């Protein structure tokens, strides 16, 4: 089997045993990027030289007999929303085109410390706002399963890179579903850790109280390995949890769910969902029962108002977070003719540098925070947030994990929802509650929809700091599903 088809764990083992060099592994993936990225456009920046240099350094350290971690020398694609001191960082926006940060994000630093070889930076919806990667200022990414469809978003470059075998691992950020939804529609695994479980320092903020870095991989164990590599307490992030990272790798290896109590969220079952998605979801519920899990249906009534609450909270925070892009200290500056005032130059730059979705959300957030509207919108949304957390709390008294489809539909065609923000927002319907409450949640592939042959994702939600449960259940299901399919779901994807 070629190097690019191997999992991160397998590559780590081969590298550790000296059967393959990090340079060979990096080169194989760089070749794959060169081969497919013209079609997929997963990357905004490919760092071939620095990747090979990093790989060489790993090989040298290993040659000296240094003990390296399980992912040392494994390539990774890094979402272009994390700062990197040796590569441009754009957040998918024209306003930051060409910006080179003078510092590394904590996640970036930890990737380097784990010996992961960063191949480049992946495409995303501008400032991580979107569900399709069509909001990137640098053109959309395409779904490797069907190049006319979206790879999800906002971390669509990262999901496409992994699904297209351009990298075994990638990073994402999940604010309303931006890891789980792209994972679901590209047939891979994507995990949103507990909020505060992974550091936001150096992650260009969209919505501070929701943004969570997390891993993408082609299988559950790989995702756990990456999760473990970059998670954990960071004193540079005040909202980072000062507690040990849950034992996610061990949970992924254990993969045993006999006696586990599973709750099916009634609010996210069937109505308005694509038939093929519902069919695969129900099959998976039956499979869980056959594996010895105890499945109950339960209600989380507040989840139905999660979407509107999210579309008040996230834009409110973003309207403030994005105020710093003002043409004064870094990034684009438009209209500075020596006559115009700073105020005018700011407004012209922001109008020229931000795309339509970002502008919509900035104005929506400004509205929700305005005097006279604050209580009715932002304030009320925060109360809904409390109710959602209470629903989760009540549910987790009865069950160990909650499940739902990850998204109501499979990957939609590029262009279909660009001018219909409300339709686009529906893609995050099932994923948003976990962001509002800070819970851990994962998406794993659970089959192909009959009507379009595209991947369907299953979402497994666990309590705060119950990240290991997501991996445990995910890995058990993965084993059972793959034995039913006769191999990974991704092997059914058409060749690029």
């Amino acid at each position, binding site marked *: 089997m070629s190097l690019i088809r191997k999992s991160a764990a397998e590559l780590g083992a081969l590298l550790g045993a000296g059967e393959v060099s990090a340079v060979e592994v990096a080169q194989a993936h760089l070749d794959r990027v060169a081969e497919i990225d013209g079609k997929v456009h997963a990357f905004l920046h490919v760092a071939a030289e620095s990747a090979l240099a990093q790989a060489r350094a790993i090989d040298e350290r290993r040659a000296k007999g240094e003990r390296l971690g399980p992912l040392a020398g494994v390539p990774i694609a890094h979402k272009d929303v*994390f*700062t990197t001191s040796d590569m441009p*960082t754009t*957040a998918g926006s024209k306003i*930051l085109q060409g*910006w080179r*940060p*003078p*510092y590394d*994000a904590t996640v970036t630093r930890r990737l380097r410390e784990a010996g992961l070889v960063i191949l480049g930076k992946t495409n995303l919806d501008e400032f991580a706002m979107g569900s399709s990667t069509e909001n990137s200022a640098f053109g959309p990414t395409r779904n490797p399963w069907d190049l006319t469809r979206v790879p999800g978003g906002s971390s669509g470059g990262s999901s496409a890179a992994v699904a297209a075998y351009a990298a075994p691992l990638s990073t994402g950020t999940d604010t309303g579903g931006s890891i789980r939804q792209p994972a679901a529609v590209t047939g891979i695994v994507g995990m949103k850790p507990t909020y505060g479980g992974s550091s*936001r*320092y*150096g*992650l*260009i*903020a969209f*919505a*501070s*109280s929701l943004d969570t870095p997390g891993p993408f991989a082609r299988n559950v164990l790989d995702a756990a390995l990456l999760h473990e590599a970059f998670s954990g307490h960071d*004193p*540079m*992030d*005040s*909202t980072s949890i000062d507690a040990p990272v849950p034992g996610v790798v061990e949970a992924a290896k254990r993969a045993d769910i006999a006696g586990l109590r599973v709750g099916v969220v009634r609010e996210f079952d069937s109505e308005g969902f694509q038939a093929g998605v519902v069919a695969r979801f129900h099959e998976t519920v039956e499979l869980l029962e056959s594996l010895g899990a105890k499945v109950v249906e339960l209600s989380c009534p507040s989840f139905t108002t999660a979407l509107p609450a999210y579309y008040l909270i996230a834009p*409110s*925070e973003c*309207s*403030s977070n994005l*105020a*710093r*892009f*003002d043409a*004064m*200290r*870094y990034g684009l500056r438009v209209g500075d003719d*020596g006559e115009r005032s*700073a*105020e005018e130059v*700011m407004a012209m730059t922001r109008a020229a540098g931000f795309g339509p979705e970002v502008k919509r959300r900035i104005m929506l957030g*400004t509205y929700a*925070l*305005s*005097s006279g509207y*604050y209580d009715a919108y*932002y304030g009320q949304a925060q109360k809904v947030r409390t109710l959602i957390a209470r629903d989760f709390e009540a549910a987790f008294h009865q069950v160990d994990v909650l499940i739902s489809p990850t998204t109501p539909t499979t990957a939609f065609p590029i262009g279909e929802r660009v001018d219909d923000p409300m339709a686009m927002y529906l893609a995050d319907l099932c994923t948003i509650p976990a962001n509002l409450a800070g819970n851990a949640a994962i998406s794993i592939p659970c089959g192909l929809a009959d009507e379009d042959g595209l991947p369907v994702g299953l979402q497994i939600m666990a309590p705060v700091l119950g990240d290991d449960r997501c991996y445990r259940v995910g890995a058990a299901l993965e084993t059972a599903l793959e034995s039913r399919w006769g191999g990974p779901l991704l092997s059914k994807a058409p060749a690029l």
Partner: protein
Amino acid sequence: MSTETLMAYDEALERFEPVLGMEVHVELGTASKMFCGCRAEFGGAPNTQVCPVCLALPGSLPVANEKAIESTIRIGLALNCSIASWCRFARKNYFYPDMPKNYQISQYDEPLCTDGYLDVEVDGRIVRVEIERVHLEEDTGKSTHVGGATGRIQGADHSIVDYNRAGIPLVEIVTRPIEGTDRLAPEIARAYVAELRELMRALGVSDVRMEEGSLRCDVNVSLMPRGTSTWGTRTETKNVNSLRSVERAVRHEIERQGAILADGGRIIQETRHFHEDTGATTAGRSKEEAQDYRYFPEPDLVPIAPDPEWVESLRSGLPELPRVRRGRLQEEWGASDLDMRSMHNADAIDLVEATVAAGAAPADARKWWMGELARRANEAGSALVELAITPVQVARVCAMVAEGAVNDKLARQVLEGVLAGEGGPDEVVERRGLRVVSDEGELSAIIDQVIADNAAAADKVRGGKVAAVGALVGGVMKASRGKADAGRARELILAKLGVSE
């Protein structure tokens, strides 16, 4: 600047009653900034004390400085405030080039400290100023305006910004409206700021240098017609940056508003600027749209929930408060009210106390600081504390006088030498040769010479006109260039001339 009509202060006070409000910003003297590890020192080269956090680079996040939280709580406790059991930072959103994030991390409806007071003394009268809130926020960067005629913001071609100051912790102390000040309003405003400044010093939380902007004062003034109880519209005069300016700004606003109201006019609620040169205030540029700061809880920082035990330990560790201390010192020193007030006004209390602690008698310490040294400071246009002499050195000079090693005249020369950088008091005495001539042999020789040179005067003394000895003593002092002990010289002269008193 438009010429404004002012109403004479006395007339304004006759017709109107002033209501004051004070907002004071104090830059805390922490080692590092409020939300990042950059040095918080004043005066570094431009943009050398900045990092991703205080420059608001994309992706950076704030982490609160524990010492700043602690200092704010101590300020609150010293101002008799309640300390919140749970409160949050909030973002105040507005665009301005010297504010890197285009929002200021501040506190809104949940300040760390609330409902306190500070007693200030004016003309022997104690006035209780109620404190509404004390909260913590961050400072902005500093813009310099380039081009144009005045170097001011208006008419400049462009501006250049240094962010060293951005993110320095700033405590805002807001009073409730201060009523009933009557004609003492300007003095009370000044005394409040002075007392607050002293309190900050006693707490050791800030160097409170108004000229460097580490204590900044906004003064709110409104007038209500005598006999009514509805407050008038207030103006807010920004950045009044010396104690004297505080007093002048209040006085000017009373005179200006009085004239407008008496003329049937209306006070506009606005921001005004104080001008040191003229003592006048002028209106700031009025905003086209009302500000809407869209405050909301800062999601990048977690709530502050001070442990009650910690708060109590901070309370018990508070230093003696300035007014209490002044009372104690007055008693210990046996000083009059007037002496205390003049020392207080001259910022001499700390210096006198330190001088006494170094061994000087309180009356002597006060005499030198408030006399010769105050005169020198005045000449140099500097504060007493800025003089190049330490309390220990002043105490040494006091001791020299007490021992009789120098007299007052010589002591003044010693002080002059120390101030001129010639070394400590002993060195100056040594180098300038200022020691009193106490060698009897040397003194005796000088006296013999003086008697010989002034035979007429000597004869008068011999003839019983003892008063004529003054001229001879004067001659001895002159001949010794002031170093002789005048009393001893007199005794010796009389003895030599065979005259006894």
